[in-house]
């Protein structure tokens, strides 16, 4: 099973490492060489230096026969465009896109792109935490 992780920052690098650990054949893509360091010294997956908007870079990373594509650069719009290219041009069956803005994430999710919004997740978790504080307190 082959996976490509585009954008190898804090989020992408950890996804890449976890997928590799779980037995996937992983190739990471980032436009900065420093990103390779985030994958750790013993990184045995692939790494392609370049921008995810560049179709040649996607091909070099093996998008044509990848089972999964994770798009996690630090730009919402960049991720949305790369995700749609992976889905529509390369007909990749499993494309997951990180989008920080909940409004854009919801719009593209409706249109059939699988978006994950860390902001919404954080909001939900924080609200849950506040609700938990409202539990009856023991009198001192």
């Amino acid at each position: 099973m082959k996976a490509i992780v585009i954008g190898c920052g804090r989020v992408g690098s950890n996804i890449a490492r976890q997928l590799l650990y779980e037995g996937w054949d992983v190739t990471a893509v980032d436009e900065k060489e420093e990103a390779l360091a985030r994958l750790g010294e013993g990184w045995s997956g692939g790494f392609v230096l370049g921008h995810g908007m560049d179709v040649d870079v996607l091909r070099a990373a093996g998008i044509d026969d990848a089972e999964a594509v994770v798009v996690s650069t630090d730009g919402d719009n960049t991720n949305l465009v790369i995700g749609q290219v992976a889905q529509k041009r390369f007909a990749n069956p499993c494309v997951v896109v990180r989008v920080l803005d909940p409004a854009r994430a919801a719009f593209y999710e409706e249109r059939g792109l699988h978006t994950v919004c860390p902001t919404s997740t954080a909001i939900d978790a924080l609200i849950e935490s506040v609700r938990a504080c409202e539990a009856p307190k023991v009198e001192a």
Partner: protein
Amino acid sequence: MYILVCGGGKVGANLARILLRSGHEVTLIEQRADRFASLEEEFEHIVQRGDATELFILERAGIKRPPDLVLAVTGDDEDNLVICQLAKEKYGAPKVIARVNDPRNQAHFDLLGISPTICATSNIMGLIEHEVPEHELVHLLELRRENLEIVEVQIAEDSPVAGKRVEKLSLPEGSRLISVTRNGESEIAVGATELRPGDQVLAILQPGKEDELRKVLLKR
């Protein structure tokens, strides 16, 4: 018309200025603080500050009306693409025009159905091809919506079609000759039109058929 201009750099600011002068209603959106400050001096309430790919910024600028025309002319192709998708598909803007900064991104705009687009680099390349005679097949016009293009070819001395009538040519499927210009005079290309060396021929074809057409007309 109500026109929403996204991106207040040289392109966006000049468009806004010209459109206002022509009597259109315009809103200009610019994200950068420094640019916004100088734009505000000139455009006052016409310019709004924010990221035009954020829904609430677009809504504040009146995208829900919706505008008759949305111009996505920021310096970032991903932003321009998302602006156009939101304007068209979420808010039902009848017409969008997108600026393509990096010609390599043109394919993404085409893939996602964003049209028309305008790319300065590609336009200049087209002009160069028109000026430089080595290019045997000159792109004159791209009809994106129709997925057709019009090209110009000069029939060479050694061309296999020199002396042949148009009806005798086996042109590639998805292509037609439009006209033949000889000694400054043009005529519509019909079956009986005979091609001669030096003729300037206009052809319409589907993009990607250039090589096949070149082979038939120029044997190269």
